[in-house]
């Protein structure tokens, strides 16, 4: 085939409501909103989509991609591979071209002729002179750029049979009240459609068909859902320092609070959101506010966690609740700041100097981010210790299709063990570090409670059960043992792991957590269809429930699937549950892109082959 358009040697991919489109753009060209419009139009047609914005750490000029997985079955993770590439960035042309599946499609701007070497003979090229059209239609440079995006969305809608009315409806919503913008956008979309109808072969083998597979599910980013969880969880103080990918969570919190936490009568803010001078200060503010009785949190990413280490140790040792959202990104150092990883597990689990250990919870998607965010404040108050909500960029900054967020209006906040004025007045004994209930958790008081009882001195130095300074070794040990007891108690409050039995008995298990979970769901279904069976356990919290060690001991080999280089969760399991390392097989994905179903399938498939596992039943492909 020649550099223009034409059919490939390999038969073109044919699929309805099940394919992957990837847009390759230049950052700052306004493509993101057009691409999201594309994804939402498909969603409006009742077909589930899973978009992934893969963006650079840059405001303008660097390559950026937007992947839209169209999938009626509802798999929300990345599949791997691309069926239709919308190649709008010459810088990344070669690498984009490589990614296309044999028989796939390449949609490109054909204004300038490209040599045949720039194409593949197993890929169907669809050229459209986008720049020429824009230059003809618009005189302003910025308009040429912005409308180009809408024009290609229009052309794609013809090629993929996306309903133009649905796109127009979405544009209408986006530009409500801004007629001046609305009309030209709709026109541009139709311009794209007209060109495609008259000049291109349509529809393609891959196409969208209206169905009803979305139901009442909502489309939401994890950061926004987590911030809403904080509001429901009763958080009134947020102290933060900007860092991708967590900033949008703090911003969402302020936005939600403005709506839900502004006193209607006085229009006074019933919350505080402080952009601190750095992460040392943001965690300090969280600790100060929590000490004083508020529910407070910070949200950050790896570098921020590093700066917070000393304070985290103080909160652990002095037993002050603190909620920390770690929206993980590519690390170490500045690493890949706009890419995703699960690589802060160890630095959070054992954050700070000395013997420390912290509660971590792992939401799998925005819905759980909402639930766990609200729960984290109960946990922090109940356990009087830092609680880490381990998100990642993939959950935090991507829009996910989720079941509607739900809240039981009868639910009340668990403020943990706090002595009131009445308790103190009635003569109840108060010892700030006195374990009266044997669960390792002592009572605290808020400052200002009682004129003569219940005050105490909070310190990072060793203290006795009544909070008095001491350097006595036995007292120190007594306190450290109680802290261990407290973490033992913690397990009963933490979200339980989710176990799933395979369709047939198996010697093999797999452990995974966080944003790997939606991908794992798909992988397991695929394995099952190949006759390969795996029992699974999805971790939702650290310290580990007893069910986790049971699960491992019930299997000969257990895969631990995670998104970091050093198999950090595997290390935690080995270290905390005293497990033979040979039993846990790492499956690691850490190039900064979200893990894909194909990757896990291949890894587990290869590893099982080494154990001579033959599928129980062969299934026709």
């Amino acid at each position, binding site marked *: 085939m020649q550099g223009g358009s034409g059919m490939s040697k390999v038969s073109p991919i044919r699929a309805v409501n099940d394919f992957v489109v990837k847009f390759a753009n230049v950052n700052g060209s306004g493509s993101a909103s057009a691409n999201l419009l594309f994804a939402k139009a498909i969603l409006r047609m009742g077909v589930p989509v899973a978009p992934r914005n893969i963006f650079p750490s840059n405001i303008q000029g660097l390559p950026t991609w937007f992947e839209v997985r169209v999938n009626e079955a509802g798999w929300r993770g990345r599949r791997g591979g691309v069926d239709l590439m919308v190649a709008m960035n010459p810088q990344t042309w070669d690498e984009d071209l490589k990614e296309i599946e044999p028989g796939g499609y390449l949609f490109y701007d054909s204004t300038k002729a490209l040599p045949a070497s720039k194409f593949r003979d197993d890929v169907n090229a669809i050229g459209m002179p986008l720049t020429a059209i824009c230059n003809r239609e618009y005189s302003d440079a910025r308009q040429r750029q912005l409308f180009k995006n809408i024009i290609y969305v229009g052309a794609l809608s013809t090629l993929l049979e996306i309903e133009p009315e649905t796109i127009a409806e979405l544009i209408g919503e986006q530009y409500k009240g801004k007629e001046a913008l609305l009309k030209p956008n709709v026109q541009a979309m139709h311009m794209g459609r007209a060109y495609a109808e008259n000049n291109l072969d349509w529809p393609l083998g891959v196409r969208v068909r209206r169905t009803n597979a979305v139901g009442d599910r909502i489309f939401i980013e994890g950061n926004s859902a987590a911030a809403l969880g904080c509001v429901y969880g009763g958080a009134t103080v947020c102290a933060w320092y900007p860092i991708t990918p967590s900033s949008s969570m703090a911003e969402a919190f302020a936005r939600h609070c403005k709506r839900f936490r502004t006193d209607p009568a006085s229009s006074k803010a019933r919350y*505080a959101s402080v952009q601190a*001078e750095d992460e040392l200060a943001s965690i300090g503010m969280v600790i*100060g506010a929590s000490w004083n009785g508020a529910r*407070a949190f910070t949200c950050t990413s790896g570098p921020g966690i590093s700066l917070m280490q000393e304070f985290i140790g103080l909160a652990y040792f002095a037993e002050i609740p603190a909620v920390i959202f770690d929206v993980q990104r590519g690390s170490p150092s500045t690493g890949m700041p706009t890419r995703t990883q699960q690589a802060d597990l160890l630095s959070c689990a054992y954050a700070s100097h000395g013997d420390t250990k912290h509660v971590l919870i792992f939401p799998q998607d925005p819905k759980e981010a909402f639930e766990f965010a609200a729960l984290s404040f109960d946990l922090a108050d109940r356990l009087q210790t830092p609680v880490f909500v381990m998100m990642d960029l993939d959950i935090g900054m991507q829009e996910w299709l989720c079941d509607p967020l739900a809240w039981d209006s009868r639910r009340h906040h668990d403020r943990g063990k706090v002595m009131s004025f009445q308790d103190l007045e009635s003569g109840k004994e108060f010892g700030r570090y006195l374990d009266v209930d044997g669960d390792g958790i002592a009572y605290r008081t808020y*400052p*200002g409670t009682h004129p*003569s009882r219940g005050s*105490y001195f909070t310190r*990072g130095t060793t203290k006795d059960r009544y909070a008095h300074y001491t350097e006595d070794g036995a007292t120190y040990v007594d306190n450290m043992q109680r802290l261990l007891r407290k973490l033992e108690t913690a397990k009963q409050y933490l979200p339980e792991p989710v176990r799933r039995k395979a369709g047939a008995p198996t010697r093999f298990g797999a452990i995974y957590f966080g944003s790997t979970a939606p991908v794992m769901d798909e992988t397991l279904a695929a394995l099952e269809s190949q006759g390969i069976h795996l029992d699974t356990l999805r971790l939702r919290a650290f310290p580990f429930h007893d069910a986790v060690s049971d699960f491992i001991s019930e299997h000969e080999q257990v895969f631990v699937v995670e998104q970091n280089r050093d198999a950090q969760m595997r290390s935690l399991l080995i270290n905390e549950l005293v497990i033979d390392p040979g039993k846990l097989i790492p499956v690691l994905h850490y190039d900064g892109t979200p893990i894909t179903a194909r990757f896990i399938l291949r890894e587990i498939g290869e590893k099982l082959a080494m154990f001579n596992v033959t599928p129980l039943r062969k299934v026709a492909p």
Partner: protein
Amino acid sequence: MTYLAKPRLHHPELPKNKLGYTHRDYEGAVSTLCAGCGHDSISGAIIQAFFELELPPHRVAKLSGIGCSSKTPTYFLGNSHGFNSVHGRMPSVLTGANLANRDLIYLGVSGDGDSASIGLGQFAHALRRGVNMVYIVENNGVYGLTKGQFSATADRGSKSKRGAVNNDQPIDLVLLALQLGASFVARSFSGDKAQLVPLVKAAVLHRGAAFIDVISPCVAFNNHAGSTKSYDFVREHNQAVNRLDFMPTHSRFGAQAAQGARRLQPGRSYRGNKLPAAARRCGRDRHRTVVRTARCHGFACGTQHRRHSAQRIARSRARSRRRRAGEVQRVVALSAQVLDAVTCNSSSPRTRGPRGV
């Protein structure tokens, strides 16, 4: 040293304030600092100030960093909640506490190492935010707790106990506080209780960020010849700018100031009414000049950025006497009224705290 409880025997004849509290009720545990340490005198002044202000101790939250100075909150206001946080980072903890509850009085105690070295950033940001608090630095020019290394406030040319000469410029926290917009700034000396107690009282009644830098000699590591923070040196070079109950009145910065300018001499500091005419342009500038001029030569103590009229102070005190126990919130409000009345010497009143809950 472990915790030493103070005997709780109360003399029946001890004078009581209007809340029925004696001086003892404002004390804390027995100090474990070196005998003669300046910091202990500051604790004494704090106890006296709160006793005289007739504030219920439990409505005060006292926070500190790390250092000998930061240990002192254990030694006063035993019925207050206290928080000995981490080195250099009391300001953020205090800010957070302030966000959670605006009805308490926040007293931050820190050292020169704690605030001018490791914690300079947090010091600056708490002041620029105008957090409602009293922030006291117990300034001895050294790291007492780690045995006498120079801190960032040590004067250039001053000698350590071992004879090392400090070649670096000192950071003057008072100048910095002014620059950062603190609405109440003062310097005092731990050995001058008559001056320090009213300053602390005024600072407590001030709404906004009130900062007091208290020169507080370290007898163990910085009280030798060659030190500029020893008792001898400070006594010799300090002349209180004013003897005040709360503050000098506005009129004291009067017509004679210009002639006073001629009397500036090295090694002395000056009363507020003897300032160069240029320094009278505006309050904050004037104060900066007092401090800057004096710092070249010695100390300017008792200088104060915020001035209140005597009548207003009297009125607010009369009102505060009528207060019932526990009504700390009104104290804060009262001081705010005073504040609003005397914003003449700064461009804008810094009544703004962080957004509260």
